[in-house]
């Protein structure tokens, strides 16, 4: 029974997250723990949103990874904030625009991957430079405040639970069902396990991969939109830390980098874990050097613990 729990792909990330909370409470008391968990839920939401997209991409097989997430976030947030220009009446327009831009970015990414036959890792790296340039050209790094109602939503809480976290939990639940129950979800998994077999089985591999890259860009767009709303405007460097974080969250969460296997609940565990890990090391008052080293060792420790049991 216990062995069975250990084997669950999402177990270790959640285990790590809980361990961090315990460590923080041990150092600074129970009241601190509640505050930290609430903050973790909020900031974890941003990780989870991009990680869902990255997970879908990674699931489609080795070599598939989207490096354009940070610059997509920046571009979409920059354009949306400027178009809304702080007016509450424009929120819907801004959100729609963000989604459309996400679709365009995803399509552009896949076009480069498919037509030019460039490995995704290089293709998305190249396009990310172009998106970054577009964002610079469009608004020169000026910060425009989000509409007030949108800002209130992004920072708002009910019973200590951030609205954004609730929305993201629902989004994660929907994506969980999509992966498990829909033709699209099953196709993604099948392609990741064996693209040739999937093609022979009648799956339109290109269409599924296109949808996957587009979904990933759309999720980046949503994340960028709400991150800018949350932090009071878009910044050119707002997406920077989401590049490595999105990959780390996906893999620590139990998704296989070899493709063909994904896991949504694990994303939440991993996102909370990543946030809490940094918080815990901050709470302990360590210098930057030891903090970085510990972060690295703990990531390796988690992946070691998680993968040692099965296979």
């Amino acid at each position, binding site marked *: 029974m216990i062995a069975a729990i250990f084997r669950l792909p999402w177990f270790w990330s959640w285990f790590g997250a809980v361990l961090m909370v315990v460590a923080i409470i041990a150092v600074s008391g129970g009241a601190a723990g509640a505050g930290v968990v609430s903050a973790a839920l909020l900031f974890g939401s941003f990780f989870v949103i991009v990680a869902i997209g990255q997970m879908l991409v990674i699931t489609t097989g080795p070599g598939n990874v989207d490096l354009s997430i940070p610059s997509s976030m920046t571009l979409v947030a920059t354009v949306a904030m400027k178009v809304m220009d702080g007016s509450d009446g424009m929120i819907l327009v801004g959100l729609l625009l963000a989604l459309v831009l996400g679709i365009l970015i995803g399509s552009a990414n896949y076009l480069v991957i498919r037509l030019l036959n460039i490995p995704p890792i290089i293709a998305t790296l190249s*396009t990310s430079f172009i998106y970054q*340039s577009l964002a610079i050209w469009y608004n020169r790094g000026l910060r425009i405040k989000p509409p007030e109602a949108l800002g209130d939503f992004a920072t708002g809480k009910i019973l200590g639970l951030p609205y954004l976290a609730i929305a993201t939990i629902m989004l994660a639940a929907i994506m969980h069902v999509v992966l498990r129950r829909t033709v699209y979800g099953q196709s993604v998994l099948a392609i990741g396990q064996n693209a040739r077999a999937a093609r022979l089985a009648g799956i339109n591999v290109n269409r599924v991969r296109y949808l996957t890259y587009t979904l990933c860009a759309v999720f980046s767009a949503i994340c960028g939109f709400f991150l800018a709303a949350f932090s009071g405007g878009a910044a050119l460097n707002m997406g920077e830390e989401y590049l490595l974080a999105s990959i780390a969250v996906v*893999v620590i969460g139990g998704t296989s980098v070899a493709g063909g296997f994904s896991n949504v609940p694990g994303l939440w565990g991993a996102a909370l874990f990543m946030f809490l890990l940094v918080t815990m090391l901050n709470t302990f008052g360590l210098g930057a050097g030891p903090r*970085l080293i510990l*972060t*690295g060792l703990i990531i390796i420790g988690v992946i070691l613990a998680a993968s040692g049991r099965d296979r």
Partner: protein
Amino acid sequence: MRDIINPRLFRTLLPAVSLAILLAAIFYIQPRAMSYFGLNLMLNLAIPIALATIAQMFILCVNDLDLSIGSYVSLMACIAATLLQETPLLGILAIAGCIAVYAALGALIQLRNLPSIVVTLGMSFVWLGIAVMLLPTPGGEAPGWIRSLMTLKPAYVPFPIIASIVIALVVHIALMKSSYGVVLRGAGGNARAVERSGWSMVRIKATMFALAGFFGALSGIALVGLTTSADANIALRYTLLSIAGVILGGGEFVGGRVSPIGAVIGAITLTLTGSFLSFLRLNPDWQIGAQGAILIIVLALRVLINRLEARK
């Protein structure tokens, strides 16, 4: 026999063609570049990139990916500028220790069937952390012999060109021509077959990772010889550059299909791309985007030539 050699030959030829086109464009825009002095200036920073690309190539060859090579090279540069300069013996020991860690990582990844992306992602924090502790503020000084080696001005042919050719040929002969090299590469193509014929996959992976660690160390040392002092963040960019370099050079992510000569050419192409853009004097808004566009164009060129060839 000819059928086996030809495709491989062609794969090494393609990167060379794109390099030649890029060089021609540079000489056209900036004739001053077409000189001993010009080539030296444009290419000397390609040496550490080429070495890091070779390191990444060893990892890609066994179907893994190293996301830590940039911070590893940074650490090596920091060690070279501090320990290796002050107490050479301790410096050599430290570098050897890091290479041993690389070998251990390779073995661990194979033994526990771990995703190399995550392990190396974790290691990138570890290397960076050690580098920050070793050199909290940028500084240190490159040992004199490294400095004089990297600023060598041989007659007729600029040093970076000689160094690139030496690196490419040495690795090419060792990996592509020697019998153990064939086994190492085979591990990426068909691990099971290699294992069945009595080779230990753990040992092969450890060897490949150790080689990567060794060339990463060379890269850091070469880099510090050019910059004269180090910085914990000095080479973080090498992670993506080295991957791009291997791919530009005709390597692939799976199947042990790599080419050392191509990797060196890929690294040089990437370096020259920067020069090309700088000579174009673009509006600053677009300088970053143009870098992306050039990468796409160079790779698209490769696909185009590939397709034309297939049609024949």
